Every structure is written in C-alpha cells, then in structure tokens.
C-alpha cells in the first residue's frame, strides 16, 4: 500500500476511535473489546459535571417508554417509585453513591507503613554490618570537652550557642 492510502486509513480509523492495531490483533486471532466512539456524547458520573450530555439508558423497553410518556404530563401524577425509576433511566449513580467513601486510603497508608518498615530494617542492617565505627570525636567525653571549648571561645555569642551560657554563674542560662 502506498504511504498516502495507509495514512488515510489510519485517519479514518482514528476518527472512529479505533486504534489501527486493533485490526492487526483481530487478524492474529486475539479478542478485541468494543471500542468507544469518542466523537459521540458519552455518559459519565462526575460530581463536578453533574448533568451528562445523554441519558444513562438509551434503549427503552415498552414499559419504560410508557413511563416516559407519563413524564410529559404533570409530575404530580407520578408516584414515588415512578420518579425513582425515571431518575435511574437518566442517571447511573446518585450523588450519594458517587460521594460514598471507598476504603482505599487504608490500603495506601498500610502499604506506605510497610515500606517504611522495610526501609528501617535495611537501615538497621546497614548500621550493624556495613558502616564503619563512628569517629572518636562523637563520644560523650569529647563532646563535653568540645562544648566547654566552644563556650570558652565564645562561639556564636550573639544569638547562638554561647548566648545560652551564663558567664557570671558559670552555668547554662535558665
């Protein structure tokens, strides 16, 4: 096939919302599910676009058609069940059903905590088996001598370290 006719076929197929490789898959004996025609109005339940372009049930049985006829008259003549039936013809879910909370957050939080726990396990294992010993300057007696030296040297005396030391009473400020 020439490149131009292949492009035309692809263009036509794309407008119908059908991927070109669908025909290839079918030719190889794979199942294909029904493709949505994206150029026609679609129905969907969304809180922020509350009135879809088309009703939910397009094909009506005889009973449903007679109900639709009754809807054309005064709504005072409709019973409660008929009103609900008409609603269900036009819409799939009610707002209450759309807004109903799922339990998905529990799965997410649980998964996150599990992975944090696994990471903690890895970190602990690294500390025991991989990392070298800490420098001796992090021992308590060294840190104490270091702090004394920092105070004697007036390190950060304005708002920092040494500003918390009371030089008159030789202790930390209360």
């Amino acid at each position, binding site marked *: 096939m020439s490149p131009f006719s292949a492009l035309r076929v692809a263009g036509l197929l794309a407008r119908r919302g059908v991927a070109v490789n669908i025909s290839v898959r079918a030719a190889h004996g794979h199942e294909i599910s029904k493709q949505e025609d994206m150029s026609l109005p679609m129905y969907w339940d969304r809180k*922020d676009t*509350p009135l879809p372009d088309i009703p939910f049930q397009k094909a009506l049985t005889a009973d449903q058609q007679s109900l639709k006829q009754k809807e054309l008259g005064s709504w005072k003549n409709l019973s409660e069940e008929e009103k609900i039936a008409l609603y269900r013809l036009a819409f799939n879910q009610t707002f209450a059903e759309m807004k109903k909370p799922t339990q998905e957050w529990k799965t997410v939080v649980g998964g996150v905590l599990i992975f944090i726990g696994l990471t903690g396990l890895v970190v602990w294992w690294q500390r025991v088996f991989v990392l070298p010993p800490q420098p001796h300057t992090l021992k308590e007696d*060294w840190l104490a001598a270091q702090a004394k030296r920092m105070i004697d040297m007036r390190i*950060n005396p304005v708002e*920092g*370290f040494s500003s918390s030391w009371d030089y008159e009473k030789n202790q930390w400020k209360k």
Partner: protein
Amino acid sequence: MAHPSQLGFQDAASPVMEELLHFHDHTLMIVFLISTLVLYIIVAMVSTKLTNKYVLDSQEIEIVWTVLPAVILILIALPSLRILYLMDEINDPHLTIKAMGHQWYWSYEYTDYEDLGFDSYMIPTQDLAPGQFRLLEADHRMVVPMESPIRVLVSAEDVLHSWAVPALGIKMDAVPGRLNQTAFITSRPGVYYGQCSEICGANHSFMPIVVEAVPLEHFENWSSLMLEES
C-alpha cells in the same frame, strides 16, 4: 563554627554578614507567607464540597496574580541590590593577605611589610587535642587584627578551590592564574571556621580555613613569632 545539627546561619562576625542575615529573614518570611497561602489553597481545593469548580476565565484575579508577584519580586530585589553594592564599596584595607589554594591545604602570605608565608593544613582526626573540632582545625590559623578592614586576594596553585568563611559572609573562588579580591572587617574578636567550597580532589573536605581575629598587639606579636619560625 556551627553547633551540631544547627539549621540556621552562624552569628555574624562582620557587618556584611549581619546585613545578609537580615535580608535572609526578610526573604524567608515572604517565602513562608507564599507557601502558607498556596498550601491553604490546595487544602481548600481538595476538601471542598462544591461541585462546580471550573471557572474558565476572570480578568480581575489574573491581573492581581500577575502584579502582586512582580511587586513581591521588587520588594526582594531592592534589599538584595543594596547589599550587593554595599559589598562593592571602596574600602581602605589596613592589611592585604594572599590566600592560595593547593591540593590539599591553604597557604597565606602577608607581604605588606615583611615576607611572611606559611601553610595551613588540617589537623588529622587522630591528632586532635580533646575538645578540638574534627575536620575544622588547622595547624596554622590566618590571624588578622580585629575591627580592621582586611583585603584577601584569593587564588590557587593547581585546581579550583574556594575560600569560604560563613561567619564573615565570605566565599571567593580560588582560580589558578586569577586573583579574586574580597574584603572584610571583623566586628568582634574570635575564631571563625570555614571549609574549601569547590571540589578539588580526594581531600576537598579536608582543607579547612581558620581565621583568628585578635587585638592589634597580639597580631603584631604573632607575626613576629611566625617570622622568626620561618
């Protein structure tokens, strides 16, 4: 130096660093305000019960959120430029010191009056006296007279280094073949630590800078001693 787990700046030891601290406070406040506002808007958007959320255009808010950021940027730029020009003012240094970066130590030359030069190597961790600061102490400090304007000419003998002392608000790249000038005045006596700030090889983390600001007589005694030693 910083105390362990310190998050903020060290206390300023020079007037320029004081200005930088105040500028940082000012700018950070603006950043916090904007972040809080954005976070609030995000939470409000996510938790609203309203279903009609998509307004397609609105001239008034578009004008507001274009003009307001421009105004905020000007409010940040003006103090910033003020400090930039402050740092560049003509000063009359009492002393000029050359700080030369090597792999992996600094050398200082005081050649205004006599020919004084010495190397400054980091004290290795195993050789520290109790209480000394790991990776920060040097065997010879750059001693300067306090409260005097000092000019530092920074350069390098091999690869790029950078001479940085955060408490003085100084960082100047040491480029081989180039003289970079910076100046400072210490507001108070003390010892100020810094570290090499440009990757320069295996021991880049192990060539610290130590500036010691002392009264003039002490500086004169020190320089006589150093001259005798060399």
